[in-house]
């Protein structure tokens, strides 16, 4: 049994495997199928200050080795989260992290402020990279000024661990990472989905209701891994790696690229217990290679 503990800023985790926002609900949806306490952290679905209906159906198109989605941040708002969801999830024996989104820096900040009051939530992940909403989301994540502005506003309102989730739909992701680091972000997580589309040739039309969607799944892994490597070598704050992780081997690749933790997303849809299996697999690999701690392999890839 190797030491699997890791930390993202002040956030201590029992193992480096988290579940990605929007792919694992609030955790409780999966409690029949997986021991939630075996997961390092659960990042709950994107939460906004006001409730949002999200985009119209169809919101999903399957691709070889992945899928496109354009859900568009459907959620019942932060007040509903605090009053109705938080009491049900606060005692889950793992780090519960809230993913926060908004349509202006102020909007992000007041949502973060509400969550700051919840004593069993020790971190938020700022979504400045959602490709599926017009008013905000990725709009902030694709320029250094936009990203810095949101982080500046939220940093004032939120003193606990602040993770910023980055968009891959940019020319230079390292410059965005550096911009949010300069504004006091405690960590960055990457990558969010890659913008794509799909066409139904019989209907001669695009398959998603808003035309485009975010691509996720094993097909994005090489792109994500490259970006994690670049960002980890460009900033001093911890990096959380995600993008197509579906096995312990995938996770170890991200850790060796420089990630202090990983998130598992789309793979949860195929195997609801994958996160715990990946954590166990990392442990077995470390033991087999006589490595005492997962921290010993962070960023070792040359």
């Amino acid at each position, binding site marked *: 049994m190797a030491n699997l503990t890791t930390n993202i800023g002040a956030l201590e985790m029992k193992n480096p495997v988290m579940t990605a926002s*929007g792919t*694992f609900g609030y955790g409780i949806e999966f409690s029949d199928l997986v021991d939630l306490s075996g997961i390092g952290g659960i990042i709950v679905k994107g939460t906004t200050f006001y409730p949002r209906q999200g985009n119209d159906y169809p919101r*999903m198109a399957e691709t070889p080795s992945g899928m496109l989605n354009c859900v568009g941040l459907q959620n019942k708002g932060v007040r509903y989260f605090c009053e109705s969801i938080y009491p049900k999830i606060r005692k889950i024996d793992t780090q519960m992290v809230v993913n926060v989104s908004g349509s202006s820096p102020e909007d992000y900040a007041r949502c973060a402020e509400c969550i700051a009051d919840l004593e069993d939530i020790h971190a938020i992940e700022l979504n400045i990279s959602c490709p599926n909403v017009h008013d905000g989301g990725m709009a902030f994540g694709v320029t250094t000024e936009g990203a810095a502005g949101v982080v500046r506003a939220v940093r004032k309102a939120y003193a606990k661990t602040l993770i910023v989730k980055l968009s891959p739909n940019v020319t230079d992701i390292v410059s965005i990472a550096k911009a949010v680091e300069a504004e006091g972000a405690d960590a960055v997580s990457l990558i969010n989905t890659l913008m794509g589309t799909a066409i139904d040739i019989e209907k001669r039309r695009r398959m998603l209701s808003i035309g485009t969607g975010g691509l996720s799944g094993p097909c994005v892994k090489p792109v994500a891994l490259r970006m994690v490597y670049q960002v980890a070598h460009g900033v001093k704050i911890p990096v959380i790696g995600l993008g197509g992780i579906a096995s312990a081997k995938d996770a170890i690749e991200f850790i060796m690229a420089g990630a202090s933790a990983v998130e598992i997303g789309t793979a*949860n849809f*195929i195997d609801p217990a994958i996160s715990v299996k990946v954590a166990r697999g990392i442990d077995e690999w470390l033991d087999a290679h006589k490595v005492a701690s997962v921290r010993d392999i962070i960023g070792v890839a040359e």
Partner: protein
Amino acid sequence: MSLKKHVIDLKVVSRVALGDRFVLLKCTDSVAQLPPMMPGQFAQLRVDGSKETFLRRPISINYVDTKTNQIWFLIQLVGSGSRALGRLNEGDTLNALLPLGNGFSMPVSASQKHLLVGGGVGTAPMLYMGAQMALMGMRPTFLLGARTKDMLLQIEEFERVGDVYVTTEDGSAGEKGFVTQHSILQKQKFDRISVCGPSPMMKAVARVAREKGIPCEVSLENMMACGLGACLCCVEKTVKGNVCVCTEGPVFDIKELTWE
């Protein structure tokens, strides 16, 4: 309170091709008794060995036999995923996540006259529902529609548990036309209607039910990714806003839907 969900490696005990467009897979859990499941619920079946297929496929529970510990899935061969499932053979493993969704409302007394309507592969959940009603001492009435006689599925199974009325679009079996045109709807009075089939058919039946003031439930089949209410991909617009078909459905009271 929802039924506990499981991921189970089922074993295929029999594969029956029904014409060239449908395959009936009879499966068992060789390790344990199958968990409780309700008519109208579905399973997310993992598709192995298809390059184009990534996600699980939501397939209705066609029939559950607790004595033989069997669960049946009726697969319509449509795309790469369903075709890969249809290629499974006796002895193969089928990984299933089940039971999912809410299921149909069951009649609460034997005096209630309940009509079960199925169209195309949508007849699948009606067999299990009818069989459960028969176990409760009721005789279900089935109204089954298909394009042609060849596309009517499992008729002998349906006849074993209830009264069966049929329509085909070409008149090759039963009454010619759509299920909504069948004379049984005029001749008998029903207290409740449950429907599963193509969306135009369900809308037509819902219209009839609404006109006659009969409570009616329909089973939707929106495209899904997770099946657990996490990804929010399969949403349907309802009077309560966008809700997940996989958890709030697949069965909906027509009063909740914002159809038409």
